[in-house]
């Protein structure tokens, strides 16, 4: 269940797609192959014939060779989350595999894999059921064949450590494959009813397995996109125009470049899709020569219309829009908000701002493009073949079947490598010069071509009755929309029938029971015109929850309630917040449980020294349909002189249902807590004259080791359906810090990042008014 699935017609995601396919088990090249296949298949052929003659295009399959090695094909990319290991654990569990026999292979962009996007914290959530069923089907086939060879009834057999076991006898998978006959087809209905192991019988899911991608990442052998070389390739560096859109090259003077040894020439890139405009590519026989030549080449432009736009213009536009009477798209509309506000005894409202935030993934953008035998081969790490391939094909002006994208390890994705537009300049250069081209962005080039998290403005208002009961809640949120820029067909419709970006909206549809609630989600046209807004790890909830969860503390302060007690009262799990089976079973009550857990974990009511504070916030991950229940407490110390906020400790309680890979899950939370702090305190850029002001690690400064606080992380034990973990740990950190700063000093910070000068200014104001 995710936005891409819900909103795309015909291009559904794999769990939906697989539920419409049958499952084949047969032998091919003396290996046992298990594959999902279309329902419409030749009737006169056996599964083995179909598989070995490649008479269909199988998806999500795994195979066991006659030595017993199990290869699981993973249509997801590896960008630090160890997803291959987690998905393989799911198959291995049901199959009864010995973990030492398991390896994974990452898929290329063959359309047989369906719509693939590694992002949204979706992978385990989407693949858990189909992979469990596929593993179970494989187990049944192995037991049937193994039982025959042992001369026993399949009913008396189990699987363990890659062996079929019956009493004191057993036979290895390898032996079974060497001697057994496999012809088995499961209908979708049969697949749906296959017995899946009960949690107490598991041996792989929920256990720590060493991540399969880690050893090559400790010796330099892991191959990232930037490491790929091809015979006859040349190097290129792009020169980016003064504005993201609408720039035109007027003239190029490369007389100085010609003096650089190894310089080959330049190309003004012609993009048939106009996604990149006014780009020049500098080509040389080494990357250093391309760099040197590009530094002395002179390009004259006619800049696009946004060359004068600054961050403040975007923020001003946001302020204007959130204050209109009914702007944007209606996303949540429960009860009657207008009546609630009219009848209220008192009101409260606040406006929150977040500044432009960037990816700065460690591996600068790059791609290698080669035209061979009628096909464009694109070599680059990317999070989505399904978004990248069409982008490249459209830019080249060729049909989609003429492009093949090859996958590698990603030196960080975080959303920047979902829409792989960085392959476009490589492909266009290769097309224009007729040679394979490796195009590498320098770090400043990468920054300039980032798809940043847009600056945002949100206004939150509350209506309170005479007893200080929260009877109305209105949330207007405004930002640049990534999905509008990069994948507009995936935008769903709001309550008023207008399309909106769920990745700039989700997070506002919270699980607190408030009788009258309205959310309006608004596109910021100035942001949209100036740059390509992007999906940044934790997307909408990453900044929307900063407003919502800060505001809850502002309400608690106004009505003199404890912010945890107030939240717990609203987490009653009633009505729409009751949740549904299996994805959000028990609904808001699980959020309540993690909040209570975190309250105790951080020892909430303890006395802290002067200038220190604890703050709390909750979140439900990326989407209501895939809730990852999290409560976070931040312990901060404030230096009132310098205004510096120091995070001493973060406490986090997480209920993500079944934890497939516990140690990798913890690693994701460790990293995302630090991301949360980094985005809250240290990361923030701005738009300056139509571009991002930050260019490299000297002026964009994500958290480093000396800024890392202590972390106490607790996963709630659960057998519920597994949900997402790659991003949710980021979300609640910023509001927890802001709430802690308030509790430490009475200063309410409503801007991200929270900088020392914000604290100093607020404290100064506090002194002036004598609070």
């Amino acid at each position, binding site marked *: 269940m995710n936005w891409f699935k819900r909103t795309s017609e015909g291009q559904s995601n794999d769990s939906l797609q697989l539920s419409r396919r049958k499952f084949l088990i047969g032998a091919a090249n003396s290996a046992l192959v298990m594959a999902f296949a279309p329902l419409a298949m030749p009737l006169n052929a056996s599964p083995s014939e179909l598989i070995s003659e490649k008479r269909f295009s199988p998806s999500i399959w795994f195979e066991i060779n006659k030595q017993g090695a199990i290869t699981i094909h993973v249509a997801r990319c590896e*960008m*630090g*989350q*160890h997803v291959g290991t987690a998905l393989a654990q799911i198959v291995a569990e049901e199959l009864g595999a010995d973990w030492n026999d398991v390896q994974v292979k990452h898929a290329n962009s063959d359309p047989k894999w369906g719509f693939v996007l590694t992002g949204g914290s979706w992978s385990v959530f989407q693949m858990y059921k189909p992979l469990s069923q596929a593993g179970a089907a494989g187990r049944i086939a192995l037991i049937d064949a193994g039982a025959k060879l042992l001369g026993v009834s399949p009913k008396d057999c189990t699987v363990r450590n890659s062996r079929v076991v019956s009493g004191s006898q057993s036979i290895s998978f390898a032996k079974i494959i060497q001697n057994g006959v496999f012809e088995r087809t499961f209908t979708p209905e049969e697949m749906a009813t296959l017995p899946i192991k009960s949690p107490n019988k598991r041996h792989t899911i929920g256990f720590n397995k*060493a*991540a399969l*991608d*880690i*050893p*090559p*990442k*400790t*010796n*330099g*052998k*892991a*191959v*990232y996109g*930037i*490491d790929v*070389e091809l015979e006859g390739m040349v190097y290129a560096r792009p020169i980016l125009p003064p504005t993201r859109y609408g720039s035109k090259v007027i003239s190029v003077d490369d007389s100085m470049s010609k003096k650089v*040894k*190894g310089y080959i020439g330049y190309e003004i890139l012609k993009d048939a899709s106009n996604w990149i405009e006014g780009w020049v590519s500098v080509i040389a026989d*080494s*990357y*250093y*020569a391309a760099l*040197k030549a590009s530094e002395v080449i002179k390009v004259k432009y006619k800049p696009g219309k946004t060359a004068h736009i600054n961050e403040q213009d975007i923020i001003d536009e946001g302020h204007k829009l959130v204050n209109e009477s009914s702007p944007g798209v209606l996303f949540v509309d429960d009860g009657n908000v207008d009546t609630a506000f009219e009848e209220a005894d008192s009101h409260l409202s606040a406006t929150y701002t977040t500044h432009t935030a960037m990816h*700065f*993934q*460690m*591996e*600068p953008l790059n791609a290698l493009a080669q035209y061979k035998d009628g096909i464009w081969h694109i070599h680059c790490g990317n999070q989505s073949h399904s978004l990248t391939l069409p982008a490249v094909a459209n830019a080249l002006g060729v049909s989609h079947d003429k492009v093949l994208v090859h996958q590698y*390890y*990603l*030196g*960080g*994705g*975080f959303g920047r490598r979902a829409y792989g537009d960085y392959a476009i300049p490589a492909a266009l250069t290769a097309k224009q010069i007729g040679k394979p081209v490796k195009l*590498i962005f*320098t*770090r400043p080039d990468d920054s300039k071509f980032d798809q940043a998290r847009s600056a945002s403005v949100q206004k939150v208002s509350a209506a309170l009755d005479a007893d200080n009961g929260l009877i109305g809640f209105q949330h207007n949120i405004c930002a640049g929309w990534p999905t509008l820029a990069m994948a507009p067909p995936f935008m769903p419709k709001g309550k008023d029938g207008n399309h909106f970006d769920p990745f700039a909206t989700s997070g506002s549809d919270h699980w607190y029971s408030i009788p009258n609630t309205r959310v309006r989600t608004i596109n910021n046209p100035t942001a949209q015109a100036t740059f390509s807004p992007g999906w940044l790890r934790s997307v909408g909830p990453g900044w929307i929850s900063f407003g919502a969860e800060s505001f809850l503390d502002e309400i608690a302060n106004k009505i003199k309630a404890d912010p945890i007690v107030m939240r717990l009262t609203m987490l009653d799990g009633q009505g729409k917040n009751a949740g549904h089976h299996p994805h959000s079973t028990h609904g808001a009550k699980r959020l309540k449980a993690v909040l209570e857990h975190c309250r105790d974990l951080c020892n909430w009511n303890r006395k802290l020294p002067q200038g220190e504070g604890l703050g709390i916030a909750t979140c439900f991950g990326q989407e209501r349909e895939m809730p990852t229940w999290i409560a976070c407490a931040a312990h901060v110390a404030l230096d009132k002189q310098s205004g510096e906020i120091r995070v001493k400790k973060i406490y986090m309680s997480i209920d993500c249902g079944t934890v497939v890979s516990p*140690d*990798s899950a913890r*690693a994701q939370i*460790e*990293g995302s807590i*630090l*991301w949360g702090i*980094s985005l809250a305190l240290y990361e923030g850029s701005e738009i300056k004259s139509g571009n991002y002001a930050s260019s*490299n*690690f*000297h002026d964009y400064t*994500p*958290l*480093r*080791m*000396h800024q*890392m606080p202590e*972390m106490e992380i607790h996963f709630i034990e659960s057998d519920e359906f597994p949900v997402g973990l790659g991003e949710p740990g980021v979300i609640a950190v910023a509001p927890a810090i802001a709430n802690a700063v308030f509790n430490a000093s009475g200063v309410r910070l409503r801007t991200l990042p929270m900088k020392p000068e914000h604290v100093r200014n607020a404290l100064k104001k506090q002194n002036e008014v004598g609070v």
Partner: protein
Amino acid sequence: MIEFNLNGKTVRSNADSETPLLWVIRDEFGLKGTKFGCGIAMCGACSVHLDGNTVRSCSIPISMVNGKDVTSIEGYDDKHGLQSAWVEEQVPQCGYCQSGQIMQAATLLDKNSMPSDEEITAHMSANMCRCMAYSRIQKAIKTAAKKNQRTVSTFKPTTSAEG
């Protein structure tokens, strides 16, 4: 022509004398474990050892390594205690910065066989990890240090300066 020692082998390069060592190691000698991150010595992904000290190969012109010893991650050939500690503590996420992290950590342990948390933090804050796997980097350095001590006291008690 510049000649230097790369991972124990003498190599020669005709690259322009200003060419950063990074590109010579990666593209001329094909050792891709050393990574390009920022180009201005701010992130540490390109860290290698030059005569036993960690340097940022993106900012060292090839002319400066003439006649010197250069070690890249490949030079460890999977035998450095930090590499096994990195696996044991499951440090890498995306992994792109980790060659540089290991090279940076190695010179810390060379000079200080049992660094404190503060010493590790001070030394390692020079390196960026965008996945922010910092707590595991810290842990793995301590694991490697402890193992190293045990190895030293078991097998070479008399030759260990640090005990």
